[in-house]
């Protein structure tokens, strides 16, 4: 899942980025409002974590512009402003959630995950596809009751596919939601990772889980 962190206080930005990356998110970050607007423009982010007081363009103006432009990315406001008025205003401008600094990182993670579930229209943090279980909170995968060991990237890819189980997921989708902006993987890197995933979650004798739609992308679980 891909997250944009917009925070002008560098030490906090650094820690949040590290924490989110270690939690398996693909993270882009900026401390400048103008830059954030440019980043957020392509709508590939699952969640934007947004500070309000920013150089360039302030957070609320930025959010207003995104919403005016029809951007539907879930936005979590992360700010030191804690009055009722601030919170109401933030939510009314189009934020989906509001967290006041200082916060527990666990809570930030949980709220980001909740926003992602909302985006993919699922309530249960445990996603089941056949006998495959993806626990999006503990980030643990079981197949037929057995734990499947995955790398962070493999997990991120599987979680993205699982959240959209039964639907066609294009390589571009995967590209845009699992990788950071600045990474420049090889053109076939998605295929390679799909290969790794297949090796780990599919057993000989069991039905295939990841189906390839030639020239289009992949589907996890039953075909539509």
């Amino acid at each position, binding site marked *: 899942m891909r997250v944009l962190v917009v925070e002008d206080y*560098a*030490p*906090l930005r650094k*820690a*949040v980025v590290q924490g989110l990356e270690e939690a398996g998110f693909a993270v882009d970050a900026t401390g400048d409002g103008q830059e954030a607007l440019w980043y957020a423009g392509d709508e590939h982010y699952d969640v934007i974590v947004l500070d309000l*007081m920013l*150089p360039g363009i*302030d957070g609320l103006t930025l959010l207003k512009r995104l919403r005016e432009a029809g951007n539907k990315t879930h936005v979590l406001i992360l700010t030191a402003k804690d009055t009722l008025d601030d919170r109401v205003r933030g939510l009314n401008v189009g934020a989906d959630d509001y967290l006041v600094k*200082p*916060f527990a990182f666990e809570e930030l993670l949980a709220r980001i995950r909740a926003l992602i579930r909302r985006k993919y229209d699922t309530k249960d943090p445990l996603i089941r596809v056949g006998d495959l279980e993806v626990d999006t909170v503990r980030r643990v995968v079981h197949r037929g009751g057995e734990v499947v060991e995955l790398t962070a990237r493999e997990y991120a890819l599987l979680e993205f596919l699982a959240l959209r189980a039964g639907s066609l997921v294009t390589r571009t989708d995967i590209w845009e939601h699992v990788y950071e902006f600045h990474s420049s993987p090889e053109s076939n890197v998605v295929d390679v990772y799909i290969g790794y995933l297949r090796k780990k979650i599919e057993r000989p004798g069991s039905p295939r889980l990841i189906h390839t739609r030639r020239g289009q992308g992949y589907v996890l679980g039953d075909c539509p």
Partner: protein
Amino acid sequence: MTRSLRGRLLLSTAIGAILVLSAAGVILYLLMRASLLREFDASLLAKARALAALVEQDGDRVKFEFENLNMPEFERPDRPEYFQVWRADGSVLARSKSLSAGNLDRLGETEGLPAHRSGMLPDGRRGRQIGIVFRARQEDEDENREQGRLAQLVALAVACETAGIDRTLTTLALLMGGIWAVAIAVMLGVLAVVVRRGLRPAEQLANRIGELDESDLSARIELADAPDELMPVIQRLNDLLRRMDDAFTREKAFSADVAHELRTPLAGLRTTLEVGLAQTREPARYREALSDCLGITQQMQAMVDNLLWLARAEAGQLGIDRESVDLAELLSGCWQAVAENAQRRSLHVEWQIERPCVLATDREMLRQALHNILDNAVTHADTGGRIRIEAGDADGRGWCRVANTGSRLTPQQVQRVFDRFWRGDEARADTGMHFGLGLSLTRRIVALLGGAISADVTGDGLFVVEIRI
């Protein structure tokens, strides 16, 4: 003694009024009594004189011409009056029938001076007696004088019951007692009302003070028709309230600012620590996290120091210690502290100092102000940009101008750079760690030193701060 002002006033005025009323009553009673007795005595004296006229001296013999007496009051058996006449040698010359064999006390020693006494009549009734001493009338006065015979002294006493006076006095006493009681009751009532009325402003004042909400110090005490005596109290109270309100507002703004501004670095600290502890890492990664935390802590400490300094400055707790200060020397000293940062940011520095520029001011305060201005310039200049530092003195006042390139502030925003914190929803020019506080502090210091500070931005992004001390 009661502790209530009303109780005290009521008690003391009531005691005073009762004393006055009682004294007046007693004096009136005594005057009435004296007047009644005087009248009574006058009638007794008239009676005595009438009786005295019946005493006649014939030669050496004194006689009382009883047959001429036509006074039934001395003879009636019911409530009679009494008289008795003594010769000079004390023998009884005559006595009223009513006395039968009894005696009246002989009263009066001096001729012509009647003596009075109240007491019991022989029959046990209360009465009053008069005694006079006189010379008996001589039948043939001229003849007696020739023969050298003097008129003899005769004593006469008349006693009469005083039931009438006693009744009148009793009635008077009862009447006055009644009037006294009613007057006291009415007066107490009036006093209570008057005292309560009189103390009502004080009571209202107490109520107003009681109504004051401790969380809202903006309220003032307003009393319609407050008496002059209470005006100083109300004024002082309102002054006190205003001062408290000011202090409280300042304190509230300060705490809010601190809480608000410390939240972001605190969040940085907490997240760095939480993320760092989330998994086992290489020692180098821990070292990096710790170093980040140390950096944040130092920033927070600097901010807390600055905030406290600012709070003290605003509370007027800092004294100014003037001495001779070389502005150029102080500036170069301050530059040392930020030179490393400037070098890291590849800033180009231009100096233009007119020498000598020596001021009489507080060295430490000016150092802090200059440090803040230089630090602000170094922090906000664009990487590889320019900083220009100018100083000099004109008309005995020193001035210093620091300019940095790369400012993105609009002229409207420049007006707010001296606010304690960059507030509102406008974009901040840089991380809130530096902005607002440093220049706000500087403005305060400059004001304390009796100087002025201004900021300006030019179209090409040149941000200029100028102070005049």
